[in-house]
């Protein structure tokens, strides 16, 4: 049975913007709350009613992902597909690889998206205009400036897009990365004549959630030169919307192009003649202000859905975002997961601490000794925390051991980290399998001086320090 939508969750990314965290653990399995990151989009799809989902992962982590998702209790039918790690495949390459398995329109979701928005309005835009592509954008989230991201300060600027929407119809008419421009942005006049009222946004977050019509996938499978989905293919299709050739052709006079046997985008985009007749006979029009037919007669149509201002939506693709969402996840739990029960303290955990506030999450088989103070922390599985430890605003992945008398605030400790006695860590990010020496006092500011004194086997992985 062919369903209306198939979903594809892209979890094959390396997490190149947060290498500190992903060195020891694939990005899609980073814990957020007490769940792996990839669980969030999956449960969103499940709640949306999607039945078939392809989860794309790099081949060597396939079993890890399977293991991690097993206890999460997802009912959605998952088809985990692995892509070869050796080849540097872009998102479009991955989709082309999957094109045999795609039988219907697809919903492409990135594994790092977390939102409390329902997907129905997005799908409705897709259905209503029988769009080729619908993309979801979030408004920038108000961030609490006070919080400091663990690890050193970076000068890395976030990638930003310039998104242009027809204000009246929400047609997506312009999409480009800001870094592609030097100082001027030029736009064809034709575009403005067609869409005389365009809203340009420069601060939106692209959710990397795309609803894509089947013909686009066919085109992608045919046209081998696209490598990335957003940067190359989608922006190409958006540009082509304003092409003169983007008009409905009644007869199949596709051979008018100079090289007749080469198919172009519009060859794939042709709509059923019946659909045309319905549209012609209907007095619906998507726009006003000129005498042009509905949709200007375009078979290729891209739309954008702008999430309402009060909705929450982020992509966890930087360390800052990752820490931020871990801080917020508990208060947002209800809305993000659609009323799923949060078990903050796993029943198998052994917690003796008396000073532990409500906003903590503790994973299975972790033990927390008495005389400890734990505030706003995410503690993974099999962690061991000894007495007289104070933890504030920390993220502990699995198997972390914190010895007596340590004071940690605003830190991220990756898998199997050991922090020896009486250490003090502030705003630090410790890579997996490292040991912080006893009596160590670390903060990103003091690190440069202390670096020489620290034994070589202890490495605090930080983004390249600009020494």
């Amino acid at each position, binding site marked *: 049975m062919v369903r209306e939508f198939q979903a594809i969750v892209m979890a094959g990314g390396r997490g190149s913007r947060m290498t500190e965290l992903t060195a020891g653990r694939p990005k899609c399995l980073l814990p957020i709350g007490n769940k792996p990151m990839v669980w969030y989009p999956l449960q969103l799809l499940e709640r949306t009613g999607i039945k078939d989902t392809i989860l794309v992962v790099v081949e060597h982590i396939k079993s890890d992902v399977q293991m991690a998702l097993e206890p999460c209790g997802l009912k959605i039918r998952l088809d985990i597909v692995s892509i070869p790690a050796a080849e540097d495949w872009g998102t479009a390459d991955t989709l082309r690889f999957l094109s045999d398995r795609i039988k219907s329109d697809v919903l492409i979701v990135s594994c790092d998206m977390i939102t409390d928005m329902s997907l129905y309005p997005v799908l409705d835009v897709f259905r209503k205009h029988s769009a080729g592509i619908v993309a979801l954008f979030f*408004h*920038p989230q108000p961030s609490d400036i006070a919080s400091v991201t663990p690890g050193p300060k970076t000068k890395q600027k976030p990638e*930003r897009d*310039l998104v*242009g929407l027809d*204000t009246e119809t929400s047609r997506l008419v312009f999409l480009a990365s*800001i870094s592609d*421009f*030097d*100082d*001027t*942005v*030029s*736009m*064809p*006049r*034709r575009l*403005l*004549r067609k869409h*005389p*009222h*365009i*809203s*340009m*946004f*420069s*601060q939106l977050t692209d959710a990397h959630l795309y609803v894509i019509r089947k013909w686009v996938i066919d085109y992608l499978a045919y*046209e081998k*030169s*696209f490598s990335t989905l957003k940067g190359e293919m989608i922006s*190409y299709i958006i540009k082509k919307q304003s*092409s*003169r*050739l983007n008009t409905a052709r009644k007869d199949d006079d596709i051979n008018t*192009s*100079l*090289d007749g046997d*080469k198919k*172009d*985008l519009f060859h794939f985009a042709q709509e059923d003649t019946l659909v045309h007749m319905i549209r012609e006979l209907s007095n619906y029009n998507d726009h*006003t*202000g*000129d*005498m042009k037919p509905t949709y200007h007669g375009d078979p290729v149509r891209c739309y954008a859905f702008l999430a309402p201002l009060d909705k929450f939506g982020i992509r966890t693709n930087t360390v800052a975002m990752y820490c931020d969402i871990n801080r917020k996840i508990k208060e947002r739990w209800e809305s993000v997961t659609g009323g799923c029960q949060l078990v903050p303290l796993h029943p198998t955990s052994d917690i003796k601490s008396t000073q532990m506030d409500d906003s903590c999450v503790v994973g299975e088989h972790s033990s927390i000794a008495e005389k400890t103070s734990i505030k706003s922390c995410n503690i993974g599985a099999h962690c061991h925390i000894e007495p007289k430890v104070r933890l504030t605003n920390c993220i502990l992945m699995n198997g972390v051991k914190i010895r007596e008398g340590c004071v940690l605030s605003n830190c991220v400790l990756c898998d199997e980290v050991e922090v020896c006695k009486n250490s003090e860590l502030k705003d630090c990010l410790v890579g997996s399998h490292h040991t912080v020496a006893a009596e160590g006092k670390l903060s990103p500011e003091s690190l440069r001086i202390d670096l020489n004194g620290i034994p070589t086997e202890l490495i605090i992985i930080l983004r390249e320090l600009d020494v």
Partner: protein
Amino acid sequence: MSRKGPKGTAGSAEALKKGDIVQAIVIVDCFQGEFRPITCDIPPALIPVVNTPLLDYTLECLALSSVQEVILFCSSHADLIKEHIKKSKWNELASAMTITVMVSETCRSLGDAMRDLDAKAVIRSDFILVSGEMVANLNFLPILEHHRFEIITYDKGAVMTMVYKEAGPGHFSRFVEDEAVLVLDASTGRVLVHQKMKTGTKKINIPLETYVDRPCVELRYDLQDTYVAICSPSVPPLFSDNFDFQTRDDFVRGLLMNEEILASTIYWYKLDEAQYAACVSNWQMYQSVSHDIMYRWVYPFVPDSPFSWDIEPYMFLRHNVYKQKSVKLGKGCMLKEDIVIGENTDVGENTDISHSVIGKNCHIGKNVTIYESYIWDNVAIGDNCHINCAVVGHHSKLGTGVTLSKGCILGLGVVLPHNSNLEASILIASPMQSKDSLDQDEVYKAEKVGEQAYRLLVDQTEFDSEDEGRAHCLHGLWLDRSGGDSESESEEEFSAGSGVSDHASPVPDDTHLFFSEVLDSLTRGYDDKLPPDNLILEINSSRYAYNVSIREVSYFVMKALLSLPIQARSVDSTPKYLTEFNKVLQDFLPILQNYVRNSDAEHDCLQALEDMAASTDMLRDGLMKLLHLLYEKDILEEDVIMKWYNSGDGESSTATALRKQVAPFIQWLEYADEESDESGSD
């Protein structure tokens, strides 16, 4: 006595502080000369639109918004304006609006006017700036309040709020030369970029920084300038400080460009759909505003509710016919639709009128057809005249059997002899008047048509180089409704050219992009007759942009030249293609010579020819002629052609077929070669 006393003074004005007097500056001369030569006799503000002088609309609208003080700023024809005001109801004691006429004979632009106002220090606070040719029913007070109490509170530097009306591209009341793109801050309504779009502009460039610092920026191409603005008192001093500001566009551009230096910002205000405002600045607008008045968009300013005190009311009949009581209609006379006829006009038998305005005391003969025309007062039209898309000025006389079509404009007092037939011309009563009052730089030659009719000749060659729009409006061609349509169509075709070029390259790779750019440049260059040197520069810059090797350049330039007739002219047969290509080559030979300098390049050239011929039938059939042509023009040398001809052996079947096809030419070449050898040896 005014029938509609200014009652609204108390109501809405209360929101403004007490003691505040709302001032309006009306610039009576538009300084544009779009209505010349008619404006040699009357100021543009006194041109009748639906039988009422423009200035009356402006003043009435200001009065309805309870503006207390109006300063009329005139430069030419000040006496006529003064006379008009003296006779009007505004001169009566009961009038709540005081009108001051300021005259400055030397004033040549809006800038001069503002500088003069600054010198005379008449501005007290925020004021309304309108032109004397405004037709509107808008309420100024909310806009003034918006400027004064909302914008100023968060931006002290705001100096101007410009009023715009929504009108999509292709809207009849959009004037081509007025088209502009506005870039606005969506949250504040601040104008960030104001870019005029000239005809033929294909791209608009907006600085990146405009977008980056703001969450949402709006690009609007669907706005029509109403030329109404609310200005802060600091506007006249700004004009004084920057003596290069002449027009309002200069002012806006200067302020936006030198934002930091001048510390002044501009905002915009969108009129809601119920309000109307337009500036009758040219004949096209004259026509569209007349229509809007007849269609009652400007209510309460419609012909049947007269606001000029001396006019008896019109009857409003079905099919949008407005007629005064004293109008006499002959037997069998047809008033079709959208017609206004003023008092004491008589229309002869079997006369057919539609979509037209006819003034008072006119005499129209028998069997006359009048369509889309504007006949002013005291005009006599003889029998059997056909008037199609024309303006006929006061006191003109048309003999019998006169035909006017395609946008004729008759000045005041023109007398046309019998059976004259005129198309798209401007006529004036005497040749002398044009010399007196026109600027020296515009010389009109007049051709005598009748005793009191001189036809102005516009120097065609002069206007060919400029964009078409200007020449058209001088001719008054804009009156023809179809004129506007064809213009937009041709532009559509024009822009389509680029669409074709990039469709051949479904994937944006660099050489493809380069090719489409070259094709683009050449198409444009061919259409606009750009000098080849400029195009070479353009091609070179694209070459560096896409990092294309010199050999590829010669290949692609040749290919582009070959595809030009197909792309740009869409020829469909070989002979047509060849003649078209010949034309192209005539223009662009220097380009080809520039790139094809050695045998390598010639070889690339041939390669392009071969590739194109292999894919296009038209070219294949004409291949021999093309080769010959290029040989004649010294682009291709004999040796290279021979080398190419001999290289094809053993390649694909199409390549051999092509070579077989040009065999006669090669034989001829060989023969010519031998001959020349022989003659050389002699």
